[in-house]
C-alpha cells in the first residue's frame, strides 16, 4: 500500500488516462497497475468497511487520489464525442467509481452516527498516527455528538431531577465486536486463535471462514485477510 502512496500525483493522473485508453496507447505497464491499484484498495476498504462491525482506519490518501483522478477523467471526457462508444463505457465506469466512494463515505458516516461517543472516546486514546477518522470525520462526529446532546437536553434531560441528568456514559452505544463475519485469507496465516479455549486454526491463502470479528481484526488491518 505504501508504495502506491509514494507515487507522485502527476504520474498517477497520466495513468488514468492511459489505463482508460482515452489517449494514445503508449501506456507503461507499471503505471497502469498503479492506477488500478488505487481503485482496488478503495474497493477492498469499501467492502471491509461494509462488513466490519466497527469503524476501520480511513483511506483518506487513496480517496484523495481517486477524487483527483475522477476529476481528471471528467475533464478528458468533455473532449470526447458523446455518442462515441468509448464515452459511454467510460462514463459508466466513472459512475461506478463514484458510487463506491460515496457508499464508502456514507457507510463510515453511518457508523460514526451510531457509535458516536464510543468512537470519539477511542480516538482520544489513540496516537496521532493511529487515528481512524480523517479530520473531517472527527469534526463531523464531534458536531453530531453535541447536536444530539443538545437536543436531548432541550427536550428532556433538563427537566429531570439533577442526579438523573448525567450518566451520559450509560448511553454509549458500542459495536458488537464478537459478531461473526465472513472472511477470505489473502495469504496463508498460521495459527489463528479461534474460540475461548485457545483453539488454533491455520488459514490457507484464499480459504474462506466465518469467525467472530474481534479475533481477526488485526488480520484485516494488516491486509492479510479481507471481509467478504
Amino acid at each position, binding site marked *: 500500500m505504501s508504495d502506491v502512496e509514494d507515487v507522485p500525483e502527476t504520474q498517477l493522473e497520466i495513468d488514468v488516462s492511459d489505463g482508460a485508453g482515452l489517449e494514445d496507447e503508449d501506456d507503461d505497464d507499471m503505471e497502469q497497475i498503479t492506477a488500478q491499484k488505487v481503485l482496488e484498495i478503495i474497493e477492498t476498504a469499501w467492502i471491509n468497511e461494509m462488513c466490519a462491525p466497527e469503524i476501520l482506519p480511513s483511506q483518506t490518501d487513496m480517496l484523495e487520489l481517486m*477524487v483527483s483522478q475522477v476529476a481528471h477523467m471528467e475533464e478528458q471526457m468533455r473532449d470526447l464525442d458523446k455518442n462515441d462508444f468509448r464515452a459511454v463505457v467510460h462514463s459508466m465506469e466513472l*459512475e461506478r467509481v463514484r458510487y463506491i466512494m*460515496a457508499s464508502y*463515505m456514507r457507510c463510515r458516516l453511518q457508523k460514526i452516527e451510531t457509535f458516536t461517543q464510543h468512537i470519539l472516546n477511542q480516538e482520544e486514546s489513540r496516537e496521532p498516527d493511529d487515528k481512524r477518522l480523517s479530520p473531517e470525520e472527527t*469534526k463531523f462526529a464531534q458536531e453530531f455528538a453535541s447536536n444530539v446532546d443538545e*437536543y436531548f437536553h432541550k427536550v*428532556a434531560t433538563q*427537566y429531570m*431531577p439533577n442526579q438523573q441528568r448525567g450518566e451520559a456514559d450509560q448511553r454509549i452505544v458500542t459495536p458488537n465486536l464478537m459478531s461473526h463475519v465472513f472472511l477470505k485469507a489473502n495469504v496463508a496465516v498460521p495459527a489463528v486463535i479461534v474460540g475461548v479455549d485457545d483453539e488454533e486454526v491455520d488459514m490457507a491463502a484464499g480459504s474462506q471462514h466465518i469467525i467472530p470479528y474481534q479475533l481477526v481484526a488485526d488480520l484485516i488491518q494488516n491486509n492479510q485477510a479481507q471481509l467478504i
Partner: protein
Amino acid sequence: MSRQTKMFGEKAFDLLKELERSSQTIPAFDDDGVRQVLEEIKAIFEENVAQASSYNASGDRSLWPLLNFRHAALQRNKRCLLAYLYERCRRIKALRWEFGPIIPGDIKQALCEPEVTFFNNYSKSLAAYMCSAGYNQGLPIDLTNNLRPPKSLYIEVRCMEDYGKFELDDGEVIHLKKNSQHYLPRAQVESLVRQGILHHIA
C-alpha cells in the same frame, strides 16, 4: 390517586409503542406524553428522596426494596423516554438524506422546535463534511446522490408534474412537462426522482 391504578413506566412505554406502530414518516411530537413521563419521573424521584432521608434517619431496612424498586422504575422511564427521542432523531436524519436540506412543510409540523434545530445543525455538519470530502479539488461530493449501484447510464423517466425547464450538464435544456417521458442521464436526474417529480419506469 391515578398512580395506584396504573403501573410505573406505562406511559413511557406507550410513547415508544406509538412511534413504532405509526405508519407516517414521522408522527407528531407527543408533547403531552413526554411531559407526563417527565412528571412521573419527578414524582418518583421526590418520593424516593423523602423516603431515603427517613431511611437514613431510622435505618428501617424494610424501606430498602421499595427504594430500589422506585429507582428501577425511574431508570426505565428515563430509558424509554430517551429511546423515544433517539428514534425520532434517527428518522429526522433520514429526512435529510431523503429530502435534502429543507424539510417539507407537512413534516415540519410534526416536529417540535428543538428537533428543527437538530435537523438544521445536522444538515449543516453534513454539508460541511461533503464540501471537505472533495479534498483540494474544490468539488463537493454529494453523498446523497449515488444511493444505489448504477445499473445503466440513462434511465427512462416519466414526469409527474409540470416542472419547467431543466438544464443538463452539457447545456442541453429539456422541458419537463407533466406526463411526458424522457430518457435522461441517471446521475443528473436522481434527485428529481427522489423528490417525486420524475418517476422511474423500469
